[in-house]
């Protein structure tokens, strides 16, 4: 029974909103119920931003994620803010480049990926979010990579279609980082 509640958090500009949206698009394609909620307000580039995603076979009642099954954090302030909310035994994916992994709770399943370095190796720091998305689908088995590729085709249209290849590469590199 699929019933996944995720929080994605990072700096404004790291692409955390898009990561969450892509999960909801993929869920919609597979005819699952889903709700995506952004933090909205005075967030700016460089400030903190987060979104929550619920994906479920069942009807989604409260769409607010108070105790996530999975937490994805792309910077230290986001870890500080959300670490205690993560469910006991939940999955935690962190950006190793910007997060101190030394003092993290030991009752969670930790995955640390240097998405910044991987993205730079691919050629653009901006795809670090898609590296993390790849890592996420590999560690949770929520979606096949083809499902995410289909979302890329759906949302990167027109002038943005040239971004598809690099995002695919980033997604695959993220999957590899977990499976390796």
């Amino acid at each position: 029974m699929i019933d996944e509640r995720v929080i994605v958090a990072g700096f404004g500009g790291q692409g955390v909103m898009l990561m969450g949206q892509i999960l909801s698009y993929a869920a919609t394609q597979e005819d699952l119920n889903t709700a995506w909620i952004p933090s909205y307000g005075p967030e700016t580039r460089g400030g903190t931003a987060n979104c929550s995603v619920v994906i479920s076979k069942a009807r989604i009642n409260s769409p607010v994620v108070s105790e996530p099954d999975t937490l994805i954090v792309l910077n230290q302030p986001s870890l500080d803010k959300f670490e205690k909310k993560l469910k006991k035994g939940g999955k935690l994916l962190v950006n190793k480049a910007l997060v101190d992994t030394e003092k993290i709770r030991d009752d969670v399943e930790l995955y640390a990926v240097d998405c910044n370095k991987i993205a730079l190796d691919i050629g653009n720091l901006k795809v670090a979010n898609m590296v993390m998305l790849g890592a996420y689908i590999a560690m949770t088995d929520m979606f096949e990579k083809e499902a995410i590729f289909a979302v890329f085709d759906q949302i990167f249209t027109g002038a943005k279609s040239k971004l598809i290849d690099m995002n695919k590469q980033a997604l695959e590199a993220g999957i590899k980082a977990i499976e390796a």
Partner: protein
Amino acid sequence: MAKVLMKGNEAMALAAIKGGCDAFFGYPITPQNEIPEYLSYHMEKNDRVFVQAESEVAAINMVYGAGGAGARVLTSSSSPGIALKQEGISYLAGSEVPCVIINVMRGGPGLGGIQPAQSDYNQITRGGGNGDYRVLSFAPENLQEAVNIIKESFSLADYYRNPVMIAVDGLLGQMMEPIDLDEAPDFGPAKEKPWAADGSSGKRGSRNKIVSLHLDPYKLEEHNLNLKKKYDEMVDKEQRYETVEIDDAEIVFVAYGSMARIARSAVDTLRKEGVKVGMIRPISLWPFPQNAFEKLPKSVHTLLTLEMSLGQMHQDVRIVNNGRYKLDFYGRTGGVVPEPEEIVERVHKLLNKEDQS
């Protein structure tokens, strides 16, 4: 049709186009800005009118004008912006001009904040405008329901010749959910409006006037009594609600919009514990669905109103309850969205009190 993932504000805007909206007049305010943003592009693409007015007051008066000329008109705003539109809403109701208003509520009073709230229940159901008037108002709990009601609202506004308000909170406006835009039927194009001031008096041979001024008190009273007949018809025909697990319920929640969804989660948790809870979910705020309270099973002993306010709908629950059941209230305000656990805890407290008494 396959479901599409859309942001609430955009989905509601598209639903308005599907519902036959001819013209939109609005002024920006968070958290509903994606409505005018979406319509600024898509209304023109669909050969319709979009105007960003210079203020909320201007926008509602443009609605008055275009609606008076017979167009299907929409405006949208959020709490303090709706406050500014109240005078216009009273005029629209008084001169029987249909329109649709989307209100994406945020915290108040005053400028308040921009996070989700339900603290404008009184403003919506009582109105801030003057006079004996009512606004038909609906509060959907998810985007599919919002889309369905918005499509229908244009024909409802035309039928009653009255403003219709769709009230959601910032959470629904900002969130994304999959929706089927064709789930609700097509309610059809506007019927002929022989009352409209549409400039065709030459052909018709008589002049139509849109007025709310009646200086003769007897004429005005007659007008008000005619309006009352419409409002009575709405009370008769437009009470909408859903009941959730009330068959053997002892405690019944009363909650609408986002709060109802959060309450559903609490119902699930409490039912698993063996606590017999259920819910009445008002969908129409005005008319308040008093019929829902007439059919409750004998097992019920307490109504627990849940709101993202300090207890505005609770006053209507009190009126409808008329002393029958014990009443309790729980709410968060100022833009704080409660967690289901808070409701569960409130019910535990209620049960403990009973054990002691």
